């Protein structure tokens, strides 16, 4: 089953790829996760922050780079290949290796100083606080 929801603020090209992927999955019996994008990401919206989770198994946290600019968060990193000795050989090789980079435009700006990153069980969790100047504000009228 697929999610249908409001995704206004995301890249159209990504949406097309996503649609293609969903169609592929539908004809595939949907047991394979045919993500063309790596890592797969979910975004949860809170009133004061956003939570971004990414599936990055086997990551060396030293090789992860998270940058925040305005309303855009970028995850950049690399996954190393297994190091096989000369007398060892592959039977099957499906796990992706190499560099990855993904950018996400959030609905509102976030505070680059207030980003919390946790990596466990192969999931990266980024908690991004909304910019103070972008949070709803009450305006009081001052009479003359």
């Amino acid at each position, binding site marked *: *089953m697929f*999610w249908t*929801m*409001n*995704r206004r603020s*995301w890249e159209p090209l990504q949406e097309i790829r*996503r649609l293609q992927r969903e169609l592929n999955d539908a004809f595939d*019996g*949907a*047991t*394979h*996760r045919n*993500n063309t*994008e790596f890592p*797969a*990401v*979910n*975004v*949860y*919206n*809170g*009133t004061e*922050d*956003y*939570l971004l*989770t990414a*599936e*990055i*198994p*086997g*990551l060396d946290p030293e090789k992860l780079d998270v940058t925040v600019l305005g309303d855009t968060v970028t995850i950049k990193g690399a996954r190393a290949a*297994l190091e*096989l*000795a000369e*007398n*060892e*050989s*592959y*039977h*099957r*090789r*499906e*796990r*992706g290796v190499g560099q990855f980079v993904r950018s*996400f435009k959030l*609905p509102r700006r976030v505070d680059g100083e207030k980003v919390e990153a946790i*990596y*466990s*069980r*192969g*999931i990266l*969790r980024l908690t991004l606080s909304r910019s103070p100047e972008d949070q709803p504000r009450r305006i009081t009228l001052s009479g003359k």
Partner: protein
Amino acid sequence: MSETNVESQQTAPDKEQGSVAHKRPTYTPRTDIYETPDHLVVVADMPGVDESSIDIQVERNVLSLIGEIKEEDVGSRQLGYAEYETGRYERQFTLSDEVNVTKIEASMNDGVLKIVLPKAEAAKPRKITVKGE
């Protein structure tokens, strides 16, 4: 090299899936398998799974891996965009009988499952000398 083969069996899609309630989806973990002189090593990507929810079974030469993905704690936040769902990983491999099933070792690290299957003595490479007549 000995011919220790590991075949993959795709888990048959569950026909019941999605018919009534929204069931947790089942995924096929991406897996690397390599052979060393003494072992077969299976490395499977299972992000979101911790060691306590891993179930490994060997029954009649079929190695089964099951891992339940732990639900993410999101507090009161609402899902705004999704590329993956919380479900389970499941996969089966047929082992040739040259694996010593009693000495299989497994470990889980950062969402990556590693299973080391020692080859049985009979399956280890052996040098054959050809004698002249």
